Each structure stands twice: as structure tokens, then as C-alpha cells.
């Protein structure tokens, strides 16, 4: 197990280094001088020189990259071209909003997908199964932002049950937060639920075909016991992985929904940084999301290896 952990840590370290290189090179790809582009009409020589020097753009490229990685390791992701504030602080301020949306969406998705996926597999070929498969096909094909717009139209416009957009911090007003998070979380959650339903269904079907399930049935165990003790316990191990990966991808992937619902998370921050050409903030937000994604994947792999020893041997 120790060798497996060390190997996975090394692999993740190498990939993370590659991620920093891609994020660093983004700034180099900007046509022209990125600081000049960012300052636009607010250009003045003093600010320009100060920002260039602070971003290290007057250094040779390899030196710039080495110092970028070195500073990133200490948590310093540079300063915003717009506000002059540290990027790390700006990104971390936005993380709670994204986390609360992503976690709520995944919880909602599990509440829908778990019964749907399990029952669909247990009643494979039935009308219920077909309905569940239609739902999951619908979910993977529908643009989430379109569903969001339709949700706003129905629940905010026609029924007036929820606000169309905006954000209230969970710590300030839990009820206000709940009413604001409902529409974006359900929008994201339904798409996630359709992916999970598919996965849970096929995972349960796979375990149902195993010999040990047939043995359990043959020795006369009640169906409920077979399902809970033998089928679900084994089928849900890979599901844990998919849920974690879905959660990780939501941390950076809900940009459109955050823009649509004016949700002040990391996705919205990325969008604002693009609009303002604030490249250090864009780089910082992307780097943080990719690093989070890698860490979650690493933890899932280690957890999975602990649960299923075959993974360690491969």
C-alpha cells in the first residue's frame, strides 16, 4: 500500500507541475503585452511598470516560471491587475459560495439518483427502468443553462416561489441562502443526477450478475438482505468514486450556472476576470480549481485502493 501511495503521490506531483506550466503559459499566449491590455484606458507608466515588475514579466521566461511555481507553493499567486489585491485572497473568498452550491447540488443529485438507479437495476426492463433511462438521457443532453433559464421562468417568473438570482451567505441567513441556492442547485443537480443514475444502475446490474449474489439467493436469504448486504455494499464502492469526481468537477465546472444566477463563486470570478482581462486572477482561479480536482482524484484513488485491494496490485 505504501508503494502505491508513493507512486500516486509522485504521479499527481508531476501532473500538478504540468498544470502550473499550462496556467503559466496562458499569460504568455496573450497577444501583445498582457499588463497593457489589462490596463486599457487606465494606463499610466508608473502603474504599468509596477504591475509588470510585481508579475515578474521583466524577467527571462524560465526565471518567471520558476518564481511562479516557487511563489505558488507558498500560497502567493500574484496580485490582481485590476484591484491590486492578492489573488489567493480573492479566490479563497469566493470558494465558500462555490462549495455550498456544489455540495447542495451533489446531495440533491444523490437523493434523486440513488433510488432511481437502484430500483431501475432491480426492475431491469420494466416501465420504471425505461423511464429512469429516459430521464438520464434527458439529463446528459440538456444544456444546464437552458434548464436554469426555464427554472427562472417557471419558479421565479410564473410562480414567484424563489428569487431569480442572487446570493445570501449560509452563515448570515440560512433561510435566505436556501431560497437562493434552490434553483441553481436543482439545475446543476439534475444533470449530475442523470449521470449518477446511469452509473448506479450499471454498477448494481453488474453486481447482480455475480456468482456470490446467486449463491446468497440460492441459500434462501430474503431479497432485501441480498440486496442490502451483498449487492448495494459492493455496487456502491465505484459509485463513491464517481460522486467524488462529480463534486470535484462541479467546483470548477459551474461557471455558466454561477453567471446565470449571479452566484458569487469561483466560476463567476473566472468569468469576471475574463471580462476584465485580469489575467493573474484568471490564472489563480484555474490553478486552484485544477489543484483541487487533482487532490480529490488522488484521495479517491487512495480510498478506492483501500476498499479494493486489486487496484493496488495493478
Amino acid at each position: 500500500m505504501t508503494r502505491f501511495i508513493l507512486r500516486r503521490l509522485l504521479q499527481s506531483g508531476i501532473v500538478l507541475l504540468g498544470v502550473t506550466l499550462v496556467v503559466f503559459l496562458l499569460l504568455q499566449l496573450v497577444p501583445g503585452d498582457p499588463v497593457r491590455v489589462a490596463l486599457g484606458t487606465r494606463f499610466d507608466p508608473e502603474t504599468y511598470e509596477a504591475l509588470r515588475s510585481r508579475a515578474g514579466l521583466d524577467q527571462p521566461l524560465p526565471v518567471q516560471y520558476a518564481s511562479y511555481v516557487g511563489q505558488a507553493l507558498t500560497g502567493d499567486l500574484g496580485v490582481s491587475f485590476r484591484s491590486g489585491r492578492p489573488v489567493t485572497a480573492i479566490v479563497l473568498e469566493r470558494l465558500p459560495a462555490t462549495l455550498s452550491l456544489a455540495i447542495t447540488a451533489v446531495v440533491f443529485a444523490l437523493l434523486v439518483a440513488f433510488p432511481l438507479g437502484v430500483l431501475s437495476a432491480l426492475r431491469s426492463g420494466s416501465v420504471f427502468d425505461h423511464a429512469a433511462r429516459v430521464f438520464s438521457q434527458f439529463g446528459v443532453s440538456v444544456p444546464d443553462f437552458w434548464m436554469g433559464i426555464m427554472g427562472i421562468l417557471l419558479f421565479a417568473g410564473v410562480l414567484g416561489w424563489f428569487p431569480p438570482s442572487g446570493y445570501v451567505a449560509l452563515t448570515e441567513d440560512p433561510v435566505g441562502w436556501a431560497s437562493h441556492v434552490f434553483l441553481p442547485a436543482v439545475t446543476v443537480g439534475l444533470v449530475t443526477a442523470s449521470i449518477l443514475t446511469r452509473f448506479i444502475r450499471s454498477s448494481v446490474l453488474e453486481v447482480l450478475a455475480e456468482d456470490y449474489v446467486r449463491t446468497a439467493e440460492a441459500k434462501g436469504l430474503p431479497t432485501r438482505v441480498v440486496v442490502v448486504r451483498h449487492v448495494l455494499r459492493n455496487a456502491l464502492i465505484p459509485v463513491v468514486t464517481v460522486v467524488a469526481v462529480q463534486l470535484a468537477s462541479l467546483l470548477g465546472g459551474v461557471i455558466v450556472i454561477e453567471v446565470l444566477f449571479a452566484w458569487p463563486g469561483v466560476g463567476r470570478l473566472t468569468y469576471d476576470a475574463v471580462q476584465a482581462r485580469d489575467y493573474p486572477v484568471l490564472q489563480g482561479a484555474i490553478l486552484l480549481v485544477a489543484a483541487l480536482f487533482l487532490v480529490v482524484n488522488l484521495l479517491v484513488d487512495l480510498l478506492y485502493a483501500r476498499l479494493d485491494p486489486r487496484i493496488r496490485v495493478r
Partner: protein
Amino acid sequence: MSGNGDSTSRRALVALGRDPLAVTGGVVLVLLVVAGLAGSWLAPAGINEVDVDRMLQSPSWAHPFGTDELGRDVLSRVLVAARVSLQVGAVSVGIALLAGVTLGLFAGYYQGWLDNVLMRCMDVLFAFPVLLLAVAIVAVLGPGLSTAMVAIGVVYTPIFARVTRAGVLSVREQVFVRAAVATGASDLRIMRRHVLPNIAAPLIVQTSLSLAFAILSEAALSFLGLGVQPPEPAWGRMLYDGRGFVTDAWWLGFFPGAAIFLTVLAFNLVGDALRDVLDPRQLTVSEARRNAG
């Protein structure tokens, strides 16, 4: 190995013909291609005919999909925008296919350090959420249709590289490849004539499914104002422009979104049907058993 390719295509066509969902998807795709090719002729009005006297009119016989905030006919714009979606799908998946298959072929065929370097590069690209990476690339290169296509092509390259490499790893150990090596055929010839035709099935499936995701990604980029720029119509852009009016004019949000949904659904239905027949390894054990039975 060309006979293998012929039978693959035949099997795919027969399977598609037997599957009602795939046929439905196919019909939608044919309609989409017609709209893409002849959208300008089919459109009842000009896509940029501004008329403030008829702005935000609800659907009627004269304007079945209503009019937008500038009085333009929404049906005409939805029809013409089909071309953009098809173009983005074809070009971006073409880029991903070309780059991914080339990288995957070399990585899987030569293995060793080349495989390690190329696949770690793909791992790096995989570490970014798809839309976030596409947004970052467009942000740097500047918004527009061309950069959106390049960005989507880049983010979908790793999946093609992985699928290709996995196929090459199993095919290169086959007797016919060893025989070709023994006859002194060059590596490029072996890859082109013997390896590629035998990994076509998973690549066809991946292409069909990626077309759906590419169209969805372009719509998302356009919705963020980073894809197609006005006055050219694109479904995502129409949703972006109409979002401020959504509670007063539901048709501005409904029809362009429904067009995206139907297109993506059609590609997914065809892709799923193709997967079932061409790449049965991706089925679950019980699905495969049931199909065999």
C-alpha cells in the same frame, strides 16, 4: 484489413436501422443538416432584419417562434444558427480527432518514454474541468468562432488520445501486426493499414458522443459571450442576449435552448446505439449477457 472496416460500417448501419431511438436521432440530425445547409433559404425572414415596431412579439402565424428585443424573427435565427453548431461540432471534433488519434497512435505503438511523456501531457489537460479550460483558452486568444473551435478541439484531444492508445495497445500484440513487422513494413504503414482500421469502432463511437459535447460546449461559450459574436446568430448567444427578457418573453429562452437540446440528444442517441453494436466492451456484463441472450 479493409474488409474489417466495410463490415464495421455495415453492422453500424444495420444496428442504427433497427433501433427506433437511433432512427429518431438520425432523423433529427438529417433535419439539422438540412437547416445547416439551407437555413438561409428556409428562413421566413432575414436574420438581421431589425424592426422596433414588432419587438418582443409572442409566437404567432407570422412569427412562429416570436420576435426578439430588436424585432428580429426568432425562427429564422434559430434555423440559420444550425450551421454554426454543425460547423463547430465538425471542426472542433476534427481537431481533437486528428491530434488525439495521432498522439494516441504514437504513444501506444512506440510505448516507452514517448508513451510516458505524451500520456502525462494528456493527464495534465485532463486535470482541468473542460469548460474552464475552454474559457481560459478563449480568454487568452480572444472571443470568436475560430478560437472557440480551437479551444473545444484542444480540450477534447486527451479523450481521443486515451481511446486510441488503449486500442493500439491491444492491437499491436495481434498476429497480423507481428506478421507485418516481419515482412519489413514501415511503422507508419503498419499504423495506417493494420492498426487504425482495427481501432475504428471505439473512435467512431467517441466521435459521435464528442460531437454532442462539442455543440454543448460551444453553446456554453456563446452563452458566456465568448463564442460567436453578434450579429451572427448562435443558439447559445441567443440565450445570452435574451436572458434579460426571459420572464417577459419566454420564447427567447425556450426555442434556441430546445434546438441545442434536440441536437445534443440526437447525437447522444446515435452515439449510444453505435456503442452498443461497435464497442460491446463498454457494456456492463449483464447488459452484454442480456444482448447475447
